[in-house]
């Protein structure tokens, strides 16, 4: 109502602007603004190279976290081998770049072709790993992905010196370090655009339906096989792209990096970010990468030994604080947002508050039937009447 009144007064542009669901685009906008700030700073020569390297790392983590988030958070399949896909992308993309840079030069075209080569080869691996996913459940699938990651690592590790460099590592071309992080963040935007649109589309709803109940999804006519393979392929594709970026940010590629521990680190980003929350994954990827880099560079010499101790303690405390059922009351009570909101809405009878379906910023994780039924769809002026019994009692 209020909205309409304003737009009548101020005309078409504002009306159009109001219609845009800003919440849907907030992550693009934030990243784009930061990118502009940082790239002007970098291109005018005012940025330290350590900050550029850090931003590159953050961008790579973001792509990895968002792509894994699609697999774990939305499709609901646990993957412990995401670094394996990255490994395939990094090696094949890096090799392509190394071959092409001899003839095409180490420019943007080579970079694009390498990206495609790395992404597509990783996607093919994704489909191959996705096939068992049709037959396996939960932790059994998790170990297949873990096995895939270790196999990929081992194959590249033992390759001959001529093909993939073996234990000495594959030499890959390096992109201009001043602008690599800009390309990396553009790729983050691309990843977001593709994955977020996918998740918000009909296909995305099908994918979350599979996560919530595969049998029910199948019963409603969703092609579970196709969707699972698509998600595996897409997730692997973007991991492969992150791999190519990684190969560009390093002179030599060593497959020992892409082990179980790295897969776990990506998973930590997704879990800390919140399952099924892309923005959460972005934030967690930034914070964890930043924490790791800072721990390594601040704790030098004899203090280096404390890095893992601090990282592990922080990890355990955050997970327990944000997930422990016993602390849920505490979390609700002292969450800053809630404190603020309580002040604002103190007088409103909680029974009258309704979730507005339009304000859902993301696909609801589990749609509870009684919540869905309790949404009052009548026009607002009729809504003041309190409905009795629209919220059934909790029966746990």
């Amino acid at each position, binding site marked *: 109502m209020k909205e309409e009144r304003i737009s009548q007064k101020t005309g078409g542009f504002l009306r159009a602007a109001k219609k845009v669901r800003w919440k849907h685009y907030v992550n693009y906008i934030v990243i784009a603004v930061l990118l502009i700030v940082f790239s002007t700073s970098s291109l005018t020569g005012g940025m330290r190279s350590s900050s550029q390297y850090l931003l590159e790392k953050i961008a790579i983590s973001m792509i990895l976290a968002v792509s894994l988030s699609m697999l*774990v958070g939305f499709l609901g399949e*646990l993957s412990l081998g995401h670094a394996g896909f990255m490994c395939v992308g990094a090696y094949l993309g890096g090799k392509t770049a190394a071959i092409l840079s001899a003839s095409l030069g180490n420019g943007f075209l080579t970079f694009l072709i390498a990206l495609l080569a790395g992404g597509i080869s990783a996607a093919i691996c994704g489909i191959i790993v996705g096939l*068992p996913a049709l*037959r*396996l*459940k939960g*932790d*059994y699938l*998790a*170990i*297949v992905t*873990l*096995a*895939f990651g*270790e*196999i990929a690592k*081992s*194959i590249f*590790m*033992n390759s001959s010196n001529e093909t993939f460099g073996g234990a000495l590592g594959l030499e890959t071309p390096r992109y201009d370090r001043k602008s690599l992080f800009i390309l990396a963040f553009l790729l983050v935007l691309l990843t977001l655009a593709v994955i977020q649109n996918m998740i918000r589309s009909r296909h995305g709803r099908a994918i979350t339906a599979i996560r919530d*109940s*595969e*049998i*029910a999804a199948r019963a409603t006519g969703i092609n579970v096989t196709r969707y699972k393979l698509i998600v595996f392929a897409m997730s692997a594709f973007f991991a492969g792209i992150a791999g190519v970026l990684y190969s560009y940010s390093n002179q030599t590629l060593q497959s020992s990096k892409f082990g*179980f521990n790295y897969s*776990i680190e990506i*998973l*930590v980003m997704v*879990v*800390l970010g919140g*399952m099924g929350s892309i923005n959460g994954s972005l934030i967690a990827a930034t914070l964890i990468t930043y924490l790791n880099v800072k721990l390594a560079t601040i704790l030098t010499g004899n203090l280096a*030994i*404390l*890095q*893992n*101790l601090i*990282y*592990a*303690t922080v*990890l*355990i405390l955050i*997970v*327990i604080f944000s*997930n*422990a*059922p*016993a*602390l849920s009351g505490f979390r609700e009570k002292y969450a800053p947002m809630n404190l603020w909101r309580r002040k604002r809405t103190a007088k409103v009878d909680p029974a009258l508050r309704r979730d507005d379906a339009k304000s859902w910023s993301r696909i609801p994780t589990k749609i509870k039937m009684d919540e869905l039924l309790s949404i009052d769809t009548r026009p607002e002026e009729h809504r003041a009447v309190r409905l009795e019994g629209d919220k059934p009692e909790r029966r746990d």
Partner: protein
Amino acid sequence: MELITTLINGLSLGGIYAMIALGYTMVYGIAKMLNFAHGDIIMVGGYTILVFLNLTGSPILATCFAIAFCVMLGVLVEKLAYKPLRGSSPLAVLITAIGVSYLLQSLAQILFGSASKMVNVGYLDSLSFGGITVQGYTVFTLACSIVVMICLTLFIKCTRLGKAMLAVSEDRGAAQLMGVNVNRIITITFVIGSALAALAGLCTLMKAPTISSTFGSMPGIKAFTAAVIGGIGSIPGAMLGGILLGVVESICNRVSSIAPYTDAIEFGILIVILLIRPTGFLGKKRREKV
């Protein structure tokens, strides 16, 4: 001849994997969590053996202390890190387990330094049968793992506590309604798992008497693989998976052309087995209900 030696080597390695996998499988079956810190309990066990061996000089006493210490540590970790998360997402527990694993490794490096240390847990005489020499530790490891497996099976089948464990692993809610103290059962599971980890630490040290802070991570992952091959949650399955993995590893190591690919081959076998039998050799098939 050569084949037999290789097989025997594989059996002793398999025995170690089996013992670790038993711990994995128990914890998974009952607490429904992947305890990635299990491998690091082995490491703690190894270091405890080292410390008490230096103090007392007796390997048997040191092992007893190590088992006691690991049990205490296991219970402590369960109470502090896993119990608060009971009822929340299994992934959250997985991440804390990883955190605990990093924490233990890092503490070990701080306390014992980064140099790996030799631990001489004593030497068992080797036996020979018609020209084939079997190392003492092979016999010990195999005997240990078989005894442990039999004891565990009997414990689960024949005691009230074991049946309660079975009930908790079948349906935690129903077991609770039947008066089973679920928290206590889970603690007991961790007690058993940690004790087995300490024992596995001893066996590993007998075979390869050197220890560092990453002592348990690779055996931990391998044993997890073994537990899955056998069917996670199944006790004989863990034994079977462990032995199979040990023998495969030993054979692969023997053939020098494929030796570098040992890991890849082991994990490849895992994938093939899971494709044929999606819940491992002896795992229970669960039909999904709506």
